């Protein structure tokens, strides 16, 4: 496995279940990242956790985990990918109806994007009250991202903006589960907004993994000369490995997160280039 370091110049790491689980670093992760840094390898961090701003990710990696990183240019979250896309498309005066956490709102603020709907947004509350709801005409986009307050009102308003007002609908990611630091998982963005997607009868545009548009964004900001020398490392077959496949790069699945060996042989499961127990096996 030491040959993986020789074989690739750029390493794109998923974070949850790969480098850390909740608040704890995965054993061997920090050692590997230091080694890659010392060999001047390109190290890029990509998380589908939409609530992390670049600053937040920087703090977690450098301060909490003690890994030195040069700048936050190597940090990507599904939230920053969303914001980057919106910034390039939105016109002055236009707003986003935001299904998202405070962290997602911070990302929007970082990129100068106007939004409404942050927090519980409980008006109107009951179904009959929606009869008199007047949509805000400046809302041209609906964003679906992890939102602890995501509720029926927000789902209904998003539905109205998309169906009645033809707002464009962008989603950070569709991960159904989010790993905690124990054996416990929590519902992720995908499960929350699946209700809305079901009502709409469409699959929304996803800005995070497995969308290759995220890789296009990475390539536009980093000098990557040879795709065959880029390796995507992640724990999730449908997001991380599929992302690598969609982007035309090699993939390495770690079994320290959400995927077990049994899931590898399920019909239709994306096939990683390599499978290892954890990133500790790389060095």
């Amino acid at each position, binding site marked *: 496995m030491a040959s993986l370091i020789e074989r690739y110049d750029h390493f794109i790491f998923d974070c949850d279940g790969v480098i850390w689980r909740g608040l704890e670093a995965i054993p061997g992760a920090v050692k590997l990242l230091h080694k890659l840094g010392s060999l001047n390898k390109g190290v890029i961090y990509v998380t589908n956790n939409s609530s992390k701003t670049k600053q937040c990710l920087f703090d977690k990696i450098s301060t909490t985990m003690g890994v030195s990183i040069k700048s936050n240019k190597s940090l990507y979250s599904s939230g920053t990918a969303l914001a980057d896309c919106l910034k390039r498309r939105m016109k002055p005066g236009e707003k986003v109806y935001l299904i998202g956490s405070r962290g997602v709102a911070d990302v929007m603020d970082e990129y100068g994007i106007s939004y409404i709907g942050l927090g519980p947004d409980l008006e109107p509350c009951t179904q009959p009250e929606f009869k008199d709801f007047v949509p805000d005409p400046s809302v041209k986009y609906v964003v679906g991202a992890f*939102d*602890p307050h995501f509720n029926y009102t927000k789902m209904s308003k998003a539905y109205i903006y998309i169906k009645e007002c033809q707002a464009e609908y962008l989603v950070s990611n569709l991960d159904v589960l989010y790993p905690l630091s124990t054996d416990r998982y929590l519902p992720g963005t995908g*499960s929350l907004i*699946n209700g809305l997607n079901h*009502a709409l009868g469409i699959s929304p545009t996803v800005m995070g993994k497995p969308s290759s548009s995220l890789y296009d964004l990475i390539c536009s900001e980093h000098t990557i000369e040879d795709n065959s020398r880029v390796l995507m490392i992640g724990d999730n077959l449908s997001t991380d490995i599929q992302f690598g496949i969609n982007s035309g790069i090699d993939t390495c699945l770690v079994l320290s997160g959400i995927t077990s060996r049994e899931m590898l042989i399920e019909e239709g499961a994306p096939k990683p280039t390599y499978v290892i127990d954890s990133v500790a096996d790389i060095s």
Partner: protein
Amino acid sequence: MECALNGRQLGPSLLKLFDTFLVDCDGVLWIQDSAVKGAEAAIRTLRSHNKRVLFVSNNCGKTVEQFQEKFRTLLHLEDIPSRDIINSAVSTAIYLKNKMDLEKEKVFVIAQDAFTKTLDSYGIKSFGPGFAEPKAFVDWTTFDVDPSVKYVIVSYDPFFNHTKLTEAYLYLTENKAELLSPDVDQFFSVSSTRKIPGSFCVQAAVSSVLGGDRTPKIMGKPDKFMFDLIQQEHGEMDRGRTVMIGDNYKTDMGFGFNCGVSTALVLTGNTKEGDVEGLGRRPDFVLGSIGDIGAE
């Protein structure tokens, strides 16, 4: 299909053909807070002909007492017995009271508080409705999953959020709780031009986090199970002499088809005159309104 858009001639036929009338409420007897013209007379006619009338509704946002209040204020019907009003919360309660250990087990409910009030009236311990404060992820690590919660109900809840979804998920996985739902309504029509996601969309969130292959047991229309539960309480019914009257083709007529009873669609609610031509399986009768039953 006896198409009767000026269906007055059908009223007497229905009285001859059927002894038991299963009647939906919203869109049939009233629309929001206005009575449908002739609805009061229709119910009085049925009762004066000694017909058994049971009100079968998927609306679990009201308690039986609140339904009775509506009968009193809108239709001037003072004495509708509470046991003759069966909504999907009542059918859920009938199911649970016969299955649960009422002393030791509890139900987690994602729904409005009328649901827990209904369960409470059957001696069933439940909790869940109302605003739920978001929790920090790290607090979920130490959250104690109460092992007595063996049932989870998922329905329309204006306060449905990640906290409630997570709590449901933990009971469903760590306790292997049974998943129930009162209905499968995909949309709710708030006006003639606007519809919004219905309770099925809340269920979709729960099903999704469970991996997509686990769906709830349905306690309401159109599932035949609701008819089984009604018969548990009211005795077996002669299906050949029973008719389901409703305004929603998918839930009410679907219920009638699934239960093997006759079906009468009214056009005062969800399904409109223009929709009738395009229907797949036709209801046995189509009435302009339930008022056609009371018309002389």
